[in-house]
């Protein structure tokens, strides 16, 4: 009897802890709805592609526009993106701690025709290795420095409240 109880107690944490949980991007901070987006979640959202050329090699990235991600998180957009909200920004963080910033306005198609994609595939295959499972592709940036690889987190920061 005691042996069975001990076995049950040992199994509890195994059952409660997430087992092999799918990689995800956190969307947190000044958002109405914090998100934990997996590739399955992104697959249900409006999909988009960006073609890049790096060192003569073309890659077609597919994923979800950042403004769609922010819309789902309840971040001010369009006519709601005025006044103090215009001082807010997205801090994109990679798994290794690398960070870059995008203002909310430069991710909003009502302000500017930008192309910032939260990508999960390249040339039709899931991202892997040094790219991470997710990455950003800032298609209109000249250098690739803000196209964060190994993306882990998108934190919306509100400077003026």
């Amino acid at each position: 009897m005691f042996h069975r109880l001990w076995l049950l107690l040992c199994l509890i944490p195994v059952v409660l802890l997430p087992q092999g949980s799918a990689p995800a991007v956190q969307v947190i901070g000044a958002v109405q709805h914090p998100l934990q987006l997996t590739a399955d979640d992104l697959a249900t959202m409006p999909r988009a592609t960006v073609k890049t050329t790096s060192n003569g090699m073309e890659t077609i990235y597919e994923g979800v526009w950042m403004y769609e991600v922010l819309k789902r998180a309840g971040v001010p957009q369009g006519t709601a993106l005025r006044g103090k909200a215009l001082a807010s920004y997205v801090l994109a963080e990679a798994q290794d701690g690398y960070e870059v910033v995008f203002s909310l306005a430069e991710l909003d198609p009502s302000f500017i025709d930008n192309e910032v994609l939260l990508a999960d595939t390249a040339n039709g295959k899931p991202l892997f290795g040094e790219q991470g499972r997710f990455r950003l592709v800032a298609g209109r940036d000249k250098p690739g420095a803000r196209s964060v690889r190994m993306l882990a987190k998108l934190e919306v920061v509100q400077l003026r409240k």
Partner: protein
Amino acid sequence: MPKQSAPGLMSTVCRAACVAVAVALALSAAEWEWTLPPGFPRPPVPADNPMSKAKVELGRHLFYDRRMSINGKQSCASCHRQELAFTDGRARAEGATGQTHPRSSMSLVNVAYAPALTWANPVLDSLEEQALVPMLGDNPVELGLNGREQAFLDVVKRDPVYQRLFPAAFPDENRFTLQNITRAVAAFERSIVSMRSPYDRYRWAGELRAISDAAKRGEILFFSSERAACFRCHGGWNFSAVRFEGSRPAVDGDGLFFNTGVSEYEPPNRGIYEHTGRTEDIGKFRAPTLRNIALTAPYMHDGSLRTLEEVIDHYAVGGKMDHANKSKILRKLQLTESDKEDLIEFLRSLTDEDLLRDPRWSDPWQDPKRR
């Protein structure tokens, strides 16, 4: 066997000559095919020296021909050995007369994509022009042909192999020229293209088991901005800056040359300063491709780092020596011994074993005098 009459003999000779010319023209016209994996760009080719199979084959023979040196002791291949990814295994190269070059031999793999040639010449981007440096240069003497160009051309003209190869490569009248020699050698060098390493198969061909777990960890360290950040100088599919068909030329060598704090940078090894004369350029050398890097020891422009372990240790401390021009990219890295092993395992995954034996780039000569 009946004797052939003089007109009959003439007719046979004419037919044979016509066939030879036709074969030569067919070979010369044979379009060059780049055998590149899907997605890789074609390298740039100068308009006045288009690629052809015949020209590359001629270039291969010249590349391995030791008669192209002052004393018959060296060819291009002496400092660019196929089995060492076209380097020579020495800290500093040695010319035909025994004179030591101030810098080490660079690999010729994917040299067609290099925006600038040699370790530290920001304005040299033509393989045709570069070929003249080892042939004719006398400080240091490499092949030592300066003043002996005509003698070598005479040797070439008399050789039955070249009597076949030159007309095929250059069907025009004036075939046996120094310019055509450099064109053929450049075409051969341009043909040495490699994208077949285990890492290429892993990264571009979807073979997820082509490299070890350690190499996969090393890849992440290599490309991590916050960890090793090696990619900042050795980025892209060639692990070095590239030019390709249709690309713009590099502007002022920007992003190609770095001072890594590896030496005191005494003359004549002061990097691109030797060409620009700008003090801010002292110590800046080209960041070469890392493809096949496990085979190209010793490392750096002066061969001063003997092993990949020493190279990683050098960068882990942010460059051993202080220098006013040391690249701001370099900083002390937080790397464990395990991290270093992973990085080296990743670098080893960049070796293209097939390249080392590929007959397209091997020695075509059977005669030991020429090899």
